[in-house]
């Protein structure tokens, strides 16, 4: 996965990440997406938990103790790294 600056970043999109505790590294999108996600507690640096993955469909995550379903397109734009 390449970051916006073009450099190589270790991390994968939320849609491809395993069901585990993940740290959000980067949100690849505009102001609107950034705002929309941050309102629900998803922002760069936060730890989320991926609970379920629907093949080519939405993912289900847990953040701030609540479950949120995120469509495929949006979850492709969230870059995460597994948090050990």
């Amino acid at each position: 996965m390449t970051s916006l600056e073009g450099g190589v970043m270790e991390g994968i999109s939320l849609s491809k990440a395993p069901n585990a505790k993940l740290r959000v590294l980067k949100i690849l999108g505009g102001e609107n997406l950034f705002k929309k996600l941050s309102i629900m507690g998803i922002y760069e640096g936060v730890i989320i938990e991926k609970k379920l993955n629907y093949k080519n469909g939405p993912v289900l995550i847990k953040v701030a103790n609540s479950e949120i379903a995120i469509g495929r397109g949006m979850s492709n734009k969230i870059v995460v790294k597994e948090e050990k």
Partner: protein
Amino acid sequence: MKIILTGNPNVGKSVVFSYLTGYTAISSNYPGTTVEILTGKAKIGGFDCDIIDLPGSYSLEGDNIAEKVASDIIKKSDYDLIINIIDANNLERNLLFALEIISLRTPLIFLINKCDIAKNRGVKINFTEIEKILNVRIIPIIATVGFGFDVLDNEFKKFTQNKEKYIPDIPVPSDTIEKWKKIGEIISKVQKIEHKHPTFLEKLEVITTTPVTAIPFALIVMVLSFYIIRFIGEGLINNLFAPVFNNYYFPVIEKLRNYISYDTLKMLVFGKNPVPMEGFGILTTGVYVPFVVVLPYVFSFYIVLGFLEDMGYLPRLAVILDKFSHKIGLHGYGSIPLIMGLGCKVPGIFSLRILESNRDKIIAGSLMFLVAPCIPQTAMIFSILSKYSILYTFIVFIYLFIVGVLASFLLNRFIKGISSDLFVEIPPYHIPLLKNMICKLNIRIKEFFKDAIIAIMAGIFFINILDILNILEKISNFFSPFFKNIFSLPPEISSVVATGFLRKDIAITLLTPFNLGLKEIMVSSFFLVTYLPCLASMMVLRKELGNKNSFYVMGFNFIISLIFTFIFSILLNSLKLI
């Protein structure tokens, strides 16, 4: 005194509103139940108050319509107090909105709701500590049983004596991410989550969301819902409503009929003949259709829907349907207006507001009119096809479904842009409370009485007048070649079509006197469901989508309806299925 109720979606604002005002607002377990602003009057601590229930919002910066409406009202600050409701199960996420309104420097009281459920799930909140940190008076409540409202009464009395004291003065960071960091600190001080063995409901959440088990479960739920609705509906008709009508009501009406000698009046009131579905008298068909055929189904549909809503199944169904929905240009939450539309199109159209873009709304609106006949229509189709095997009823509904999916597929291609992504909170399951279910059923039945029954009777009256003035015949003659040659339907149908959009259930009733064959009933049922929305939903659609877009939706559906009625007629005639 003017009070506004705010909070995240699905925290129980409508339950609090209902409790305070005694006016019952519909509440369910999914985000976006309330899309309108509700106002009511209440006595709190002995004071007369105007209460305004706002749609739930996650943030004052939120960008969906319901959130914008809420934040505009909050920012106007022409009220005396904000009562903000927080879900104890979701303290962390709820605190973002809480901090945003704290920074408005306006009088506040916080209610922390659903304390009972939180306790069962192992969530422990230190209320005195959070009160100190936020500098806002906090009252734990359980709104569904009315726990904690006496404390609110006392607090409100104190508030009226010194309003200034209720304006919090803690510093709040302006940036959202900084707010989250502050929330993290607060949570570590005030909340402990004990690990508990998963409850039955928590296990069920996993089963009904994990794809392998969720899809069969969803299918079972849908088929079972269909059968339960039919079972309760038919049971009520055969064992209660029809016997009462036939044994007690009808004989009285028949006696009265003999007292009236003036023919036109007799026809208007008692119908052309004594058969309840054919005579079209205001006191015969006008009572039989709404009370005996439709009401039992309205009742049974809303029992099942109410259960699924209160349990919290609908958002999970939306997740399961998300992948499929994208193929027809929607995301999974688009299924919620459709399900509402199966009851009545009017609330269905209102709930289109939970979708963000106009594109989503147009596709979901159009799909709703094609695949989701409202329950009065469904009841009439059941009734008119009841002498045949249930298979034929299924064929009509499956054909509606296929056509709707094809049409949305086309719309998805035609309308520029891409469908937005699903992004929605999935609430935990709740055991539906009988009290709430009855309350909600009561509201919906009342709505039906208010809107439908008078409209049905007025519709029947109007059609009779047209008939007496020979206008129906003229319309029939004009359109009949079209119906006869293209849809292979008897020419009389055109009079039904011309008047049927007033009320769809009457339209289907109007078919009865023609003694149509099975194929003709199926084809005309399909056409009557799809060709135009009923008058009430037309008006609401115009209000929600605007003139231009609602015109496009209706025009598109009308064309689709013509084409696919033609195809349906050919299919049924040529395939010799029947």
